[in-house]
């Protein structure tokens, strides 16, 4: 297992190099003069523009700029934002926690709700509950998150006034040591529920399919015959085995959400990383785009690794780093 872990972590380096190169080439080719965006506005003095280009190294040939960029990366320096004029690392540190909190909340809600609905549907295969759950799953997966967010906002915030319309809140607690401010809980509800409703459908459908497939297995009867309680049989034998494909999809969803739930962040004015990247792309704030994409690439690889490791716990037949178990 240790060898496997080390191998996977070492595999991160070429992935990051490839991502860095591809992103750099793409943003370099995007039309527009970054110097003008750094200086801001129209009708600028050409001398100011020249000075900006020199200050930021934008007048160097492309290979020089690329090598300088790679050199900084090796030192852990993701550069400085053209627009905000502060380190990209600081920008990620500020915007990733809200995205992480939203993604975790949405995935937890979606997992709980999806597994529950999938279990209910599996328990009444072909019945009304099953059909309703399947219908809800399709509707949930088909709804544009932007529209769903606005509808939930109109109902629960504008009409019923149960929840705040938007925002992260201004007075949430600050976590000691890391200095991350948590959202106010009521501000988290609507964006998290919006995202979770979209994810819940696929989780419910996969849980249902998995449980139906596992329900016919002999080992459930064996476990019951050995005296295991019904709850234990369901949780440790039926559900646990049915969850392997569900965990895969949850892992993928989670990794995708960490990249930023842009539409949700946009609707609910959530100060997350997705919105930050989209804005940086629009403004051609290249260091921010490059830094964030690299960071998210690393996060995706790590989340996938975590999901792979979870398989070992869920299914003892899965084994990494040596001969396969029987």
């Amino acid at each position, binding site marked *: 297992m240790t060898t496997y872990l080390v191998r996977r972590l070492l595999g991160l380096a070429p992935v990051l190099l490839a991502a860095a190169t591809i992103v750099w080439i793409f943003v370099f080719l995007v039309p527009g003069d970054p110097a003008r965006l750094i200086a*801001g506005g129209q009708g600028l003095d050409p001398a100011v523009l020249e000075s900006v280009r020199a200050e930021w190294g934008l007048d160097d040939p492309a290979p020089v700029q690329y090598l300088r960029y790679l050199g900084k990366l090796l030192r852990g320096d993701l550069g400085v934002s053209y627009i905000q004029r502060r380190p990209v690392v600081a920008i990620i540190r500020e915007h990733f926690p809200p995205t992480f909190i939203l993604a975790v909340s949405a995935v937890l809600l979606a997992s709980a709700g999806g597994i529950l609905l999938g279990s209910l549907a599996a328990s009444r295969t072909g019945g009304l509950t099953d059909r309703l759950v399947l219908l809800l799953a399709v509707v949930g997966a088909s709804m544009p998150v932007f529209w769903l967010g606005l509808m939930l906002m109109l109902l629960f915030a504008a009409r019923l006034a149960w929840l*705040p319309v938007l925002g992260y809140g201004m007075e949430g607690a600050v976590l000691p040591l890391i200095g991350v401010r948590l959202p106010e809980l009521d501000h988290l509800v609507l964006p998290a529920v919006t995202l979770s409703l979209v994810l819940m459908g696929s989780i419910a459908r996969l849980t249902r399919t998995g449980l139906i497939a596992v329900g016919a297995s002999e080992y459930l009867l064996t476990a019951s015959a050995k005296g295991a309680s019904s709850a234990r049989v369901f949780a440790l034998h039926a559900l646990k085995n049915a969850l392997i494909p569900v965990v895969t999809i949850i892992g993928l969803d989670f990794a995708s959400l960490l990249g930023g739930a842009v539409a949700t962040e946009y*609707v609910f004015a959530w100060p997350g990383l997705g919105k930050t990247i989209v804005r940086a792309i629009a403004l*051609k704030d290249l260091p921010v785009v490059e830094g964030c994409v690299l960071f998210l690439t690393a996060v995706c690889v790590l989340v996938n690794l975590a999901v792979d490791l979870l398989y070992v716990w869920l299914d003892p037949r899965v084994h990494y780093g040596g001969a396969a178990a029987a």
Partner: protein
Amino acid sequence: MDRERSSTPHARVRRIAVAILATLGTVAAVLQVLACGRPRQPAAAEQVLRFRLREDPPTLDPALANDQISEAVVLNVFRGLVEMDPGTLEVRPAVAAFWTIAEDRRTYTFRLRDDALFHNGRRVTARDVEYSFRRTLSKETNSPRRFILEPIEGAREFAEGKSAAIAGLTIPDEQTIVLRLSRPFAPFLSQLTMVNAALVPREIYDDPARAYLRAPVGCGPFRFSRWEQSNFIELLAFDGYYGGRPALDRIQVRIIENRESALQEYLAGGLDSLDEVPNHDDALMARLGSEVHEYPFIGTQYIGFNHMLPPFKGNTALRKAFNYAVDKEYIWKALGGYPPANGIIPPGIPGHDPDLPGYPYDPAKARRLLAEAGYPDGKGLPPIAFWFNTSEGIRRLAQKIQADLKAIGADVTLREVDWAAYLAAVEGTPEQPGQAQMFRFGWYLDYPDADAILRPLLHSSNWGPAGNYFRYRNPRLDALLDEALSLPDPGARAARYREAERIAVMEDAAWLFLSYYQSQTLFKPYVKGIVHSPLGEFRIPLERLRVEKGAA
């Protein structure tokens, strides 16, 4: 046996499912209690104004601020020697208690107030003025608006690194500063009202770590408190403000990009002011009633023609035909646009000419002019690329212009691109014109003087990327603008600007003249002391506002 085996796990599933459902229900109930228990409004005793910005300010450094979003915050934290009265548009004292102008109209002597304090408690002195001006001018700062100080003798040499001092800046004593200009320059005081001439304390702004970018310190009516990117900026009343402590205790600037979400937040009471109105929803507009504030804004929207590229190059008749072909009234009333423009200088600015005929909608005349231009019914006129930056509102405008031009026989293809690509296509290089043949643009005046729009956009000295993207050149217009700069009499200056405008509009049809901007803002009825400023919705002096919820 089979039946028993399959039904037993299902029963278990149901029990577990019910347990999960109960747990989720409990969590939801707890969330609901938490939500209802949290106060949504500021404490009643505190006067708090909450308004929205659609994005984070690109900067809070006054030397670098070059956009309305940055100015919305910076203007409340900083002050300069003089300031523009947001209502009357007159220059009035700020940190300078008074000033005198010598007979040669080149020497300005400012006497500073004794009671002006920075937010760190230190008194503002003439040394701070010198430091701030040097900072804005210096190469290291790269201020996009260093030009506002360049009329000072020696300022350009200092900015270019050719001189260690600004020759025209002297400090006779700690509370007096003398500025000597290279030549008489009538708009100098107006330029000094711009935020880039604001005063900053050296002990804060000499910081190599640039902490001031996230924690600005000025001497304005509000001091900076907090900034959480993409979330909010908070300002607090400055007790030591020389103009008296503002009535508002706190300003919360909420960063909300989505227009619809911001509107819902305003309607739900989470905002006291909103910089966009729902003019697409007549019923809601009627319900909002007096909460809708509409007032002129000193800016002009236009379609630029590239005078270096065919078919507009040297073809005045074609440019006039396009002007007559577009229904500006329809754009204003049906598309939620702005009032039609008859020229360049917007109302409220000395030199604006209400009697300028302009180009009212006249398709028949447009067709005649198109034929005169060499393209009867559009025959022989190749498709023209019309560039604009991505925006739903601008797209609607562009589609209407495309349809109007099609009606007279001119084919226009729309090129919608992001801002960076748009600027590249429009500006070109000093040597080469951009590839855009026609393009939509708008210009907000930095200060209320006709020179602030005519010179940057139409004077040949700003040819190319410096502002005159159209590559328009008319020596008579240049001469009139140059002459106006040195005239002491405001009436004589205004006459020169009217004449210059008449040349660009009626003789040369330099652009397609579309509209004069308007500000549209929502304010809750309990917000009092609102001054409608032609300088823009974010130039309403917040130190004069009061939040009187009991009076609403």
